[in-house]
């Protein structure tokens, strides 16, 4: 089943197309990661799918309806977005920020019903931030704050959650922490997760499905084993990498790499050395 698909999507800023005629289907109840080099259009794709930026041509379908013609509140009941480095007004408590996730379910003045409060409570419990409920968001560390934003997205009660580089600006431990939280949401709560990730090893470790992009096109899709290959690294990142198997997770891993230009240089130097 594919609830979320894009067909012949063309997206651009100032008429320069960043993405052209791109089609993709997102598998349900799985973790999908979009990978690719800087400027390949992976964030743009996520923004177009989530209606943050408009697309020029093509369509994005959610449960068979065009997102562009759906009521924006109805879209927000089906998919939640965590944009790259979001920010909030200073002075809000964790509980309040999470409660904003109820916006698409509220009407009028935005009073919270008991059902809303229960969902907010649940979202804070799942993300293990219930202990900070009354603290202000500003006091928290980067990793904790990211958990609060994920809780807000959860409070939207959507089956689909999209995240744009959720681990940026976090240290190694907190990056893992956030990714494990997302894995848990996928496994235990059955949420479909789509994210843009920079780190290909993290993408391979936590995703069921990878989309590799280059200059506005998806050039490879499939399981991490199928996508994380020497060939893909060369095509997408222009690097020459060694692929091994992670001894702990059994997932493919890029152990080391060189830039392709550097490698040629390296070989040339070797040749020069041996010639001497």
């Amino acid at each position, binding site marked *: 089943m594919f609830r979320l698909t894009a067909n012949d999507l063309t997206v651009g800023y100032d008429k320069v197309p960043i993405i052209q005629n791109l089609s993709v289907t997102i598998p349900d109840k799985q973790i999908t990661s979009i990978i690719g080099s800087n400027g390949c259009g992976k964030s743009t794709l996520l923004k177009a799918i*989530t209606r943050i930026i408009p697309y020029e041509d093509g369509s994005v379908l959610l449960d068979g309806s065009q997102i562009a013609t759906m009521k924006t*509140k109805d879209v927000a*009941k089906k998919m939640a*977005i965590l*944009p790259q480095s979001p*920010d909030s007004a200073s002075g809000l408590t964790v509980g309040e920020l999470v409660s*904003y996730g109820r*916006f698409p379910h509220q009407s009028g003045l935005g009073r919270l019903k008991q059902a809303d409060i229960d969902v907010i409570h649940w979202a804070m419990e799942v993300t293990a931030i219930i202990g900070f409920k009354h603290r202000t968001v500003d006091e928290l560390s980067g990793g904790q704050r990211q958990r609060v934003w994920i809780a807000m997205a959860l409070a939207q009660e959507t089956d689909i959650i999209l995240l744009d580089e959720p681990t940026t600006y976090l240290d190694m431990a907190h990056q893992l922490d956030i990714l494990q939280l997302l894995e848990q949401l996928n496994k235990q709560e059955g949420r479909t997760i789509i994210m843009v990730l920079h780190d290909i090893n993290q993408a391979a470790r936590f995703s069921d499905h990878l989309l590799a992009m280059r200059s506005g096109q998806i050039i490879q899709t499939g399981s991490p084993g199928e996508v994380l290959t020497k060939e893909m690294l060369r095509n997408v990142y222009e690097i020459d990498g060694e692929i091994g198997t992670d001894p702990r997770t059994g997932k493919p891993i890029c152990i080391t790499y060189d830039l392709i230009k550097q490698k040629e240089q390296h070989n040339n130097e070797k040749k020069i050395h041996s010639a001497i």
Partner: protein
Amino acid sequence: MIPSQLIRKQRIIIFILLLLIIMTSIIAIGVGSSSVSIDRLIPTILGNGTFKEDFVFFSIRLPRLIIIVLAGMALALSGAILQALTRNDLADPGIIGINSGAGLAIAVFFLFMPIEVENFVYMLPVVAFIGAMATAILIYIFSHQRKTGLNPIHLVLVGVGFSMALSGLMVILTSGAKNEKVDFIANWLAGNIWGTDWPFILALLPWILILFPYTYIKSHQLNIFGMSEPVGIGLGMHVEKERIVLLMVAVALAAATVSVTGGIVFIGLMAPHIAKGLVGPRHQLFLPITILMGAWLLLVADTIGRNILQPEGIPTGIVVAIIGAPYFIYLLLRSK
């Protein structure tokens, strides 16, 4: 989800502000030229005043007082909306040029239209709104960049530029005009509150009665504007539609007010900022405090202005600027 001690704090602050407004009003009426002494105030209100007391109280002081309270409230609310929409504590209808747009439209109207006093009063807010809205649209176009959106510092700079250019235009317009009309425009620029009669209250009141509750109902949306735009879109808010409507509300509030009070700057900057400092960024809590704070600040400024430098006093707008300009500079330095 709002902490209950904050709600209690808000109630107490509202109570204190109401008290301050009443006390300042009594002092304002009791001092200066054409005053009603404090011990005669209650008898006069109850209808037992002398002819002179009645006249001074009901025809001079009370309408001025009401105009000032309403104007302070409207300017403060306008500032609060602009600050939320631009995510910028420096936004104020005066600073970003909306007031000058209203002023220019009024000047043109005043200089070139044959004036019938009756309709003049009720036309003013409408004329001011047209001028202010046109200016707001221009400022928006000039400070909006496609990639970065509305840059806060950019907006203030463009606004200040517009504000100065439009004030200059007003001066040029007056250079060929008759003396009394020049006086009017010079007074307007200085923020000398002139519309201090009952018809002006009636002209201002409908705008306020409609736009105050409307803005309060939009508290939740204004809160969401406090987060970055993609978050608002993700939550299913019509960001673009809400922004345009609320911007029109802010412009209408400022335009209706300054059409009666002249160019008063900084109330819309200070009042919301102080209110946020007291109870935090939730609009449902700080908007009521903002409007009361705006009313009180303008009342204090007007009372000082009227009683300093006898007999004419100095225009209220100048007193507000003397208090507000350092506050603005403080915010500007802090917002780096």
